[in-house]
């Protein structure tokens, strides 16, 4: 990853966010990045406060409904220090999918007539068969994709449980693909469930084994998002403004030398509790 790269982040909002990779990106003190993510959460605030991003391309940015509109986002966007380029959720999904399919655009019926059309420079075209107007959603080919998955083998074949978000399309669209995984499995394990593989190994440039690599965000079936932590985080921002995030980064990103040290800040009890909650929610069927 280099300064100025166009970086797509997998997962969605506080689900399966590759936070271990975001932490690494912060520690490398990258600058001038463009961040593309369908719904942007704390990781977007981190990168804003760290001065790493110039532009965020997204459909929505805040932590989550109960915590209201992101004060950090408002501070950086209203002051013009970071540009927020808004696309509809489907349009952003189709931008990744067009990239994944290797075509320069995909036709769609969304965003038409809205003022969002003017923000990112979306064009329209006429269907060559009927003459109807369609949105021409432009492909997005990120320089780098950072993703977190449930399991992967030594060849880089990745499997994801539960809702897949946009990771499969992002991996196909990006030039370089960096993946962290909850679990490393054998070649045989992949071959026992080939219909569960969503990213083939030939797309993956680097793979690292990082259990809890999305924490305190969630990983389907493994651990629930730590809403208490979000509450403490936003309370600190309510009290002190964006500098609270700078303090947070000191404590969680720059301070702990390893990801294990980072997880120790949450403590084993917290991880166990969130694991238990995830099992309750997904084992209930």
């Amino acid at each position, binding site marked *: 990853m280099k300064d100025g790269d166009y970086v797509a982040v997998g997962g969605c*909002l*506080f689900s399966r966010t590759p936070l271990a990779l975001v932490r690494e990106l912060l520690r490398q003190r990258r600058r001038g990045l463009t961040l593309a993510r369908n719904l942007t959460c704390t990781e977007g605030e981190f990168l804003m406060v760290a001065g790493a991003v110039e532009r965020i391309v997204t459909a929505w940015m805040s932590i989550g*409904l109960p915590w209201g509109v992101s004060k950090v986002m408002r501070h950086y966007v*209203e002051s013009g220090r970071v540009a927020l380029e808004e696309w509809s959720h489907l349009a952003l999904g189709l931008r990744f999918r067009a990239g994944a399919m290797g075509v320069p655009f995909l036709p769609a019926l969304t965003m*038409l007539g809205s003022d969002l059309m003017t923000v990112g420079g979306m064009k329209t075209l006429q269907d060559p068969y009927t003459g109807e107007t369609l949105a021409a959603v432009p492909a997005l080919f990120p320089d780098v994709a950072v993703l977190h998955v449930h399991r992967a083998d030594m060849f880089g074949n990745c499997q994801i449980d539960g809702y897949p978000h946009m990771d499969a399309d992002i991996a196909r669209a990006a030039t370089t693909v960096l993946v962290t995984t909850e679990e490393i499995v054998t070649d045989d394990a992949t071959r026992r469930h080939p219909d569960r593989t969503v990213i083939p190994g030939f797309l993956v440039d680097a793979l690292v084994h990082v259990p809890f690599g999305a924490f305190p965000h969630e990983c389907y079936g493994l651990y629930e998002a730590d809403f208490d932590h979000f509450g403490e985080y936003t309370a600190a921002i309510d009290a002190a403004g964006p500098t609270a995030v700078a303090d947070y980064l000191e404590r969680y990103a720059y301070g702990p030398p390893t990801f294990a040290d980072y997880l120790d800040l949450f403590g084993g009890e917290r991880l166990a509790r969130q694991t238990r909650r995830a099992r309750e929610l997904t084992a209930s069927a």
Partner: protein
Amino acid sequence: MSTLCNAAELLAVMASRQLRDDTTVFAGVGVPLLAAALAKQRHAPRLTLVIEGGIIGPEIAPGRLPISTNEMRAGRRAQMLPGITDAFLFAQRGFVDVGFMGGAQIDQYGNINTTAIGDYWKPKVRLPGTGGANDIASLCREVIIVTAHEKRRFVPRVEFVTSPAWLRGDGSRRAAGLLFGGVSRVVTTLGLLGFDPETKRMLIEAVHAGETVETIRANTGFELGLAPTLETTAPPAADELEMLRALDPERRFLG
């Protein structure tokens, strides 16, 4: 009767009554999802929820309401997890009967702004953005807005059209390429609003018990016509409120 419940409860009950059995509904989190869960439990057992996080047919557990569309509470006991893009594509293909969502700022043609107050690139107030609201408004067969009725929310013309309804009311929705859909109804804390079939301007279809045309007009920032017949909604029934409260015992969305 309506004094027996608060405004959020009234809104959720009135919204839930809009949903029919054997349909598909694209529901946003918060009161819309709560109302859809109530409808499914009470009168629409074969209602299929479609949730933006890429989730179809979940069973929302009482007391474990999701706060986002992309989390295990929203996906609990789902029938299918197609992913975000494909969930929206079901709507684009015409398979989603109702889009069910809130709105920060709405105008007389039903257009919604959840993007920014002031110039887009130098906003006075930056809102979180569309999420999937634009897509729901563009692609569902019918859209129902669920919102608190406040004058500052009901403006003559939104500063930025995030989610298109009837645009300028002059056929501009169809002309823009949106082949179907559009907002059919706005459910508020004061009454039910619809749209004139010709002008596509908002009008009053019903008032909630205890409210009047005048209270609605006083809380709306533009002129509101009247539907040919004006109804008064039946107040929330005891069983509706009981089921609703059981769904949100922590009063996360019911206040």
